[in-house]
């Protein structure tokens, strides 16, 4: 689709905004509707749009397999690691109140970090799924 000028330009314009929106949804998640799941999907959709317009190969150059894979693993680790930190601080697993001296601040930090982990994982997984399907077909016999 890279030959369609209109599509290309619009896509280029849209993608940053989609990403920005994803970030908004991500970090506003503890005040209003939103959170890592939604943000991750939105973020990935920006990326998928990029791949659709500029080709899967170009997209793979931007996010090679190892980046996606690391993203998946890293997100999970951030989520779980937060729990471990609260363990190390002497509280129960995932008890964010222990993260800071002030329980409310702790809860705040905790949920942000956790949602960040979720967001990274979801975005990476969505991208990975897209790559898994989009990359098929051209390689082997259908």
């Amino acid at each position, binding site marked *: 689709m890279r030959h369609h000028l209109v599509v290309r330009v619009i896509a280029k314009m849209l993608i940053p905004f989609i990403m920005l929106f994803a970030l908004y949804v991500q970090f506003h998640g503890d005040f209003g509707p939103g959170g890592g799941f939604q943000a991750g999907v939105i973020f990935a959709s920006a990326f998928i749009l990029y791949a659709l317009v500029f080709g899967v190969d170009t997209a793979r150059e931007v996010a090679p397999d190892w980046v996606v894979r690391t993203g998946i693993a890293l997100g999970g680790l951030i989520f779980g690691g937060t729990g471990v930190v609260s*363990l190390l601080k002497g509280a*129960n*697993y995932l008890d964010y109140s222990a993260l800071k001296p002030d329980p409310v601040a702790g809860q705040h930090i905790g949920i942000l970090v956790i949602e960040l982990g979720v967001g990274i994982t979801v975005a990476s997984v969505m991208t990975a799924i897209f790559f898994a399907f989009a990359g098929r077909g051209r390689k082997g016999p259908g």
Partner: protein
Amino acid sequence: MIASVHFPVLQIVLPLLLAPVCVLLRGARLAWFTALTASWAAFGIAVALLLDVLAGGPISYAVGGWNAPWGIELRVDAANAFVLTIVAGIGAVVMIFARESVEHEIGNARAYLFYATYLLCLAGLLGVTITGDAFNLFVFLEISSLSSYVLISLGKDRRALYAAYQYLILGTIGATFYLIGVGLLYQVTGTLNMLDLAQRLEGQEGLRGVRVAFAFLTVGISLKLALFPLHFWLPNAYAYAPSAVTGFMAATATKVSIYVLLRVFFTIFGVEFSFGQMPLGEILMFLAVAAMFAASTVAIFQNNIKRMLAYSSVAQIGYIVLGIGMASVTGVQAGVLHLFNHALIKGGLFLAMGCIVYRIGSTHIDDLAGLGKRMPWTAAAFVAGGLGLIGIPLTAGFISKWYLVLAALEKGWWWIAVLILLSSLLAVVYVWKVVEQMYLKPAGEGAGRTEAPLGLLVPTWILIIASIWFGIDTRLSAGAALEAAKTLLGAG
């Protein structure tokens, strides 16, 4: 240092967190080592928990500091501590086996994904067992199921793909049924915590919603545990999965589902409702006996030994369910005990098959000719496991059979006792079919002595020796099973 009060959560978190670490490490050896550490640590924790619980009663852990019934509670009592030990133990032993088996069957390039998925599956199974929250159970169930679909599809044979797909469809239906059941219960009671559910359900037995929920839960879990006739996904899945996966799954996945069944029947709904007001005892008994005979008979006619063992699993699940269906302390004890013993026996047998695949490259019965000479240790392991399956004295299988028969006689059902024993003779037929092939048929030309490497033999024999050990010294297994049965039935 992280104190031992956090053991319940570490039990799940350790494998769950080390799974992504495997992905990050990438190297086959490193990933294997990580997975090995995780699974053995999980086993250690499980043993510690079991000892704690046997000594000091149930342990409860509030995740995130949110107390039950609002937060997710991890709850360890005699029943699930025992199951945890089995699952983690098998997981740890199979992990030793996995290194060479995976290298051979999956290849080192993708091995790290295998280990990561394996750890996820382990974490899921442990989570299902340890959680005290009905919905959280669903989540863990799906974690373990999804990863097991992946693991199965890694099999070399292309039929593994379709087997995984079938399992995915049926497994998802089962899980969704469970979800419906939990939803209905939530609607009636407004809680998801199991103990809380049990309390609030008291006096609500007449409600139609409760009964429907009960039916959905029973059918959904029965699908997961491959209760005859809902077992169609199992034979193919076991037959075509990689050896290490089959060994692991056969010994753990269905067992954990059986544990869930126990929880639902005895803890959530209570004996009175499950067996008194619902005709569950009769239904389970009928299905169990049908499984014992039908699946064993089918097993006799299989030429693929892994498939044969898979059908045998369906039959053995019948024994376990039969014990549960008796709803007496001895019956449930027999069921839980057989759950344990069968995990060891079938795990050992499937690992022995893994050794055979490693060297012979086939699980077809014709290719096993003369195996007694070619792979004496592997063949001996198979025979020892087979004897356990039949229930010959001095093997673990005998102990479970003893308790089952005893439970049947205690209830005065002598004909059930006779049926149990009769059906175990079918096992003689299919086990002996293989034994004759291995020992009484000369190997083909040019077949030298090619024993499996130690890395495969040692874990196989660990399980086999354990299955013999627990046929001789039953204090730990039968004692823990008795505690579990008492806990579930609330008899002290």
